[in-house]
């Protein structure tokens, strides 16, 4: 069978690419190993994690109503874990079912099979699904490689026990263990750890680096670290290496090898969330001209083209940051490039969001990067304690900051920590992409009272004229 455009992998990168290519009038086939479209993001990533985080958030807010507002629900919530799981699975089915319908309506063929490259224009299809064409091969003019990534699981932790889980296992929500260790204080570990902690587990977090969320600006991490520490009742072990894991009865015994924390401890479950690995091995890429980097990513240019003229690559398999929205936009670029449209992936800002409570979000250049690379920026910070909305909601620990290019006065980076940061960062992305100067942001009327005002206010800090804080940049008027 021949199809002009084949997309290998039906995740947020792959289906976005396939659907747009179809909308552009191309004849498209998706090859996906799983019975459902959606990929990591929909089946075992972004979506189920956010559904569970919603439950965690409401439980937290009820605690806050009790503590601070005089509104008290009697007792603790009873949690029917089967219903929680069913609801989460329902959300997934709705969305993945929707994608299936959309593929049909767009005349996109979906083949359920594992594809491997025989050569630059042929895929071998493994599997036993009816959708696999006779002969089990598919030839193409263009293939968009979108095989995504999988959780990294070092052999030392891979001890053949169900009690040692990756993020997929944690999202399966088999039970609410009494005690749980989260190995890795990155965003996935903190999101899932928060969920289990709010559902009632005693969670411990262990992180090799000096602080949680290595790489993120410290001032953004601080309020979250404080909250996580409280949630874990102090059991946050940074600067600590996990040595070995062994199954002991129905527990997992874990040894901590310092430098900050030594000894061993037993947990009912362990979540290993130390990173993700792009899926480039075992795909037969050696039969093509595609170049794979040392770190296992497919090398692409700004049009998502690989070194093989027939193959483009997008999403997690095509490099960092491994985020769904990056995958989607790259997918759209790849589809447009094949359709002959003037697309390129030349983004100035790809937002990153940690959907904990508080949320952390940033886009464009970070303070950490600016320091590392010696980029001269002015950093304009607005504390949420000065925001009427934050006061009304009782979430005054947040902050919003802009990184401004001192020469042009343009905003080139933004960081936010606080409830809803993930929504707020979108305006910052637009501002950075548009090359907005600080005045463009401060003179846009932000609705009152909202947290979006903090973006405007942080801009005002640049001029020393934020209404609700006193941080003059000009000399004060001579007094007397």
């Amino acid at each position, binding site marked *: 069978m021949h199809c002009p455009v084949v997309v290998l992998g039906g995740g947020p990168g792959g289906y976005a690419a396939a659907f747009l290519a179809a909308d552009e009038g191309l004849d498209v086939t998706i090859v996906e190993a799983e019975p459902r479209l959606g990929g990591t993001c929909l089946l075992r990533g972004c979506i189920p994690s956010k559904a569970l985080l919603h439950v965690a958030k409401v439980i937290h807010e009820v605690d806050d109503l009790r503590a601070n507002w005089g509104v008290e629900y009697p007792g603790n919530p009873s949690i029917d874990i089967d219903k929680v799981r069913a609801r989460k699975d329902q959300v997934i089915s709705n969305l993945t079912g929707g994608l299936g319908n959309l593929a049909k309506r767009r005349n996109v063929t979906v083949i359920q099979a594992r594809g491997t490259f025989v050569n630059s224009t042929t895929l071998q299809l493994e599997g036993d699904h009816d959708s696999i064409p006779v002969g089990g091969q598919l030839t193409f003019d263009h293939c968009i490689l979108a095989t995504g990534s999988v959780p990294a699981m070092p052999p030392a932790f891979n001890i053949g026990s169900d009690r040692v889980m990756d993020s997929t296992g944690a999202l399966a929500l088999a039970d609410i263990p009494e005690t749980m260790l989260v190995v890795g204080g990155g965003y996935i570990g903190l999101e899932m750890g928060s969920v289990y902690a709010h559902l009632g587990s005693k969670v411990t977090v262990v992180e090799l680096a000096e602080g949680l969320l290595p790489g993120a600006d410290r001032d953004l991490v601080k309020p979250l670290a404080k909250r996580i520490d409280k949630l874990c009742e102090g059991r946050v072990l940074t600067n600590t290496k996990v040595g070995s894991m062994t199954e002991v009865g129905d527990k997992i015994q874990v040894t901590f090898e310092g430098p900050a924390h030594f000894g061993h401890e037993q947990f009912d479950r362990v979540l290993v969330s130390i990173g993700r690995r792009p899926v480039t091995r075992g795909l037969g890429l050696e039969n093509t001209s595609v170049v794979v980097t040392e770190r296992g990513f497919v090398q692409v240019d700004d049009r998502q083209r690989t070194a093989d003229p027939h193959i483009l690559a997008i999403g997690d398999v095509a490099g960092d940051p491994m985020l769904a929205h990056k995958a989607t936009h790259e997918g759209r670029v790849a589809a447009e490039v094949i359709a002959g449209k003037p697309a390129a992936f030349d983004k100035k800002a790809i937002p990153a969001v940690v959907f904990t409570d508080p949320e952390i979000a940033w886009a464009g250049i970070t303070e950490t990067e600016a320091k590392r690379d010696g980029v001269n920026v002015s950093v304009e910070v607005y504390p949420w304690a000065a925001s009427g909305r934050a006061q009304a909601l009782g979430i005054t620990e947040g902050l919003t900051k802009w990184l401004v290019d001192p020469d042009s006065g*343009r905003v080139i980076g933004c960081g936010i920590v606080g409830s809803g940061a993930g929504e707020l960062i979108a305006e910052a992305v637009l501002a950075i992409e548009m090359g907005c100067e600080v005045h463009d942001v401060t003179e846009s009327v932000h609705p009152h009272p909202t947290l979006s005002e903090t973006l405007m206010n942080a801009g005002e800090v640049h001029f020393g004229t934020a209404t609700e804080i006193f941080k003059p940049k000009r000399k004060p008027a001579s007094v007397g």
Partner: protein
Amino acid sequence: TPHHVTATTGVQAAPAVRRMARGLAIDLAAVPGSGPDGRVLINDMTEFIRSSRHTGARSH
């Protein structure tokens, strides 16, 4: 990483303008920008195209 470089240096233009320039194979650096700090606006593109049509200077 590359996307930060474009954030601080290079020609300033909105995504739609960048897209237009790519489509017409115009080097944005060659287009005089009338926006703040030399930002290239859509109107600058139309003007540039009109004037290059006269002078035949357009690089295709």
